[in-house]
């Protein structure tokens, strides 16, 4: 069963068409990656799916709910992690997670916070103010925030952006684990190797159009490439 169905999605900013009628499906529990250069339309697509931007034409269905008609319902089942997201600086890590958890089922509140603290894995620093966190700690807190609610669809924009190797690896492991737990993941990345490691299926996007889509291994075979980076170069040619 498809958890996400995107059909002929068009999104424009004024006269500039950022996404030009793309279509793709994501199965339940699948990790789907959108890969492309800067300005390809990855973030715009993710922002549309997370209800931040309105659709110009086309349709998006998440777990059979029409995004354009019921954005409030969609927000209950998704979680979005923007590329350069921040947290409220005057709150401690724990208070920040509590603030977010309060928007969800109050009966599950404690469970959600405990899960968030576990994913963030900040130890005693969880009770320090966000303002004192390093970039890596902040990102881990935000990943914890995004995944603690056990969303049906996690939309992650460059989840390891700006992180060192160890922190990035930790976050990749977390994403793999939640996918095994049944969460569908849609992520974008510049890092082709990361995508190759993480994603069950990928779509290569350039200039607002999906130019190739498939399982990383099969795409490498199709284009006789040793990695996704080479596939991308080949496709763009």
């Amino acid at each position, binding site marked *: 069963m498809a958890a996400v169905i995107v059909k002929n999605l068009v999104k424009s*900013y004024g006269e500039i068409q950022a996404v030009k009628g793309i279509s793709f499906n994501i199965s339940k529990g699948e990790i789907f990656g959108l890969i492309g250069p800067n300005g390809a339309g990855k973030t715009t697509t993710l*922002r549309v799916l*997370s209800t*931040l931007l309105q659709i110009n034409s086309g349709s998006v269905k998440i777990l059979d709910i029409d995004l354009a008609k019921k954005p409030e319902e969609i927000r209950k089942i998704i979680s*979005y992690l*923007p590329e350069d*997201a*921040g947290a409220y600086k005057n709150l401690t890590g724990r208070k920040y997670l509590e603030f977010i958890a309060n928007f969800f089922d109050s009966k599950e509140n404690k469970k959600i916070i405990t899960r968030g603290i576990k994913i963030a894995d900040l130890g005693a620093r969880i009770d320090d103010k966000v303002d004192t966190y390093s970039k890596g700690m902040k990102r881990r807190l935000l990943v914890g925030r995004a995944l603690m609610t056990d969303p049906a669809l996690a939309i992650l924009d460059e989840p390891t952006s700006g992180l060192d190797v160890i922190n990035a690896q930790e976050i990749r492991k977390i994403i793999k684990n939640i996918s095994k737990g049944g969460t569908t993941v849609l992520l974008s990345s510049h890092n082709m190797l990361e995508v190759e490691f993480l994603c069950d299926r990928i779509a290569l996007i350039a200039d607002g159009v999906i130019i190739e889509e498939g399982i990383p291994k099969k795409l490498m075979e199709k284009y006789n490439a040793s990695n996704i980076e080479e596939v991308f170069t080949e496709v763009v040619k």
Partner: protein
Amino acid sequence: MSSLGNIVFKEIRELLTPATLLPIIIMAIIFMSMGNTIGGIEDEIEEPPIIGYIDYDNSNLSKIATNILDKSAKVIYNSTNKEEGIKTLEENDGVAFILIQKNFSNNIFKGNPGEIEIYWIMRGAGILDSISSSVVGLLLDEINNNISRDLIQENIEVNATTVLQPTFRNQTTHFKGKEITGMPPEDISGILSSQSTLIPIVMMMIIIMSGSMVISSMALEKENKTLETLLTLPVKRTSIVAGKIIASAFIGLILAVIYMLGLGYYLMGFQMTDSAGAAQASLYLEASDLLLIGLSVFVTLIAALSFCMLLGTLAKNYKSAQTLTFPVTMLTLIPMFITMFKDFDTLPLALKGILFGIPFSHPMMAPRALIFDDYLLVISGIVYVSIFAIVMILISVWIFKTDRLLTGSTNTNLKKLFRKK
């Protein structure tokens, strides 16, 4: 280009933005229009005050008085019917009706001050509204001095006190349907301004403080990149807008209470001396009036914060938020100064329209209006401000529901229309 020139050119380009220029241009326009208004007031001062008088005494001493009045004022009534005289003045923008009693000179010769009855026609309680009555006050001082001089020159044997103060004023003021005895317009203005100073200042402080909080809060959400997360959470847009407004209103009210405590004690020093006179002149607010003022303050605060929320959606970062507080500050200062200098009733029609249109001016005008039972102005103000607040909230919620909050995009159809034209 030299290194210095290169840096200067770069700095000018960075600093000279529309955001820097616009507030200064608006400020200049406001000062220009205020200059024109003050120019009009100067003309008003230069014009002789419009008065009327009855001289029942018709003596040499009373003629000293009427000669001064004829010379320095524009006399539009000089007959024998008091009621007719007052009515004529009321209909012709008159300032005062002066009545010299029959036994005026006899009293002076007997060593008692001669009575001059003055019926002031007061139109407004602002500082600039009492200019004409002050001019008449000066003429009455001149009458007093000239009669003193005459008594001395003619060697009339009266006691020293009467020589120095040969006249005494029995004053009654007609103001907005009330007849206030024993008080000239200056005293009434003093009482009214001491009673209505607190609200405009506190209103200004609350709006500026809590308004800048709302704008900064929106700007910080954008700058700290927390807005996108907030907008993808299962929370209604109306709850986000209302939550920000309520929190800022709450903090604004706390700050206002602290501020009012200090300012209240400060102003109490001035009010103590006036309280007896105010009660006598029935220039006080009743409990129902205070309730209306409270309602006016409340809806205005909500309107101001809704307006600030709308401005906050335009803020790109904390720096631009600082610029956006400027219109709020100006819209608060303008009515505060106008109501301080002029009464709503005595303003030119255009200024009346501007003052009514600025939602923040209504609680500033309310106390004075309620003292004189002008419920129409206050209630229509509350209704107008409530509508303004609702419209602002609806626009803010609409912006929260569109892409504009994140992309700042403008209406493309509108753009196209302009391009075609």
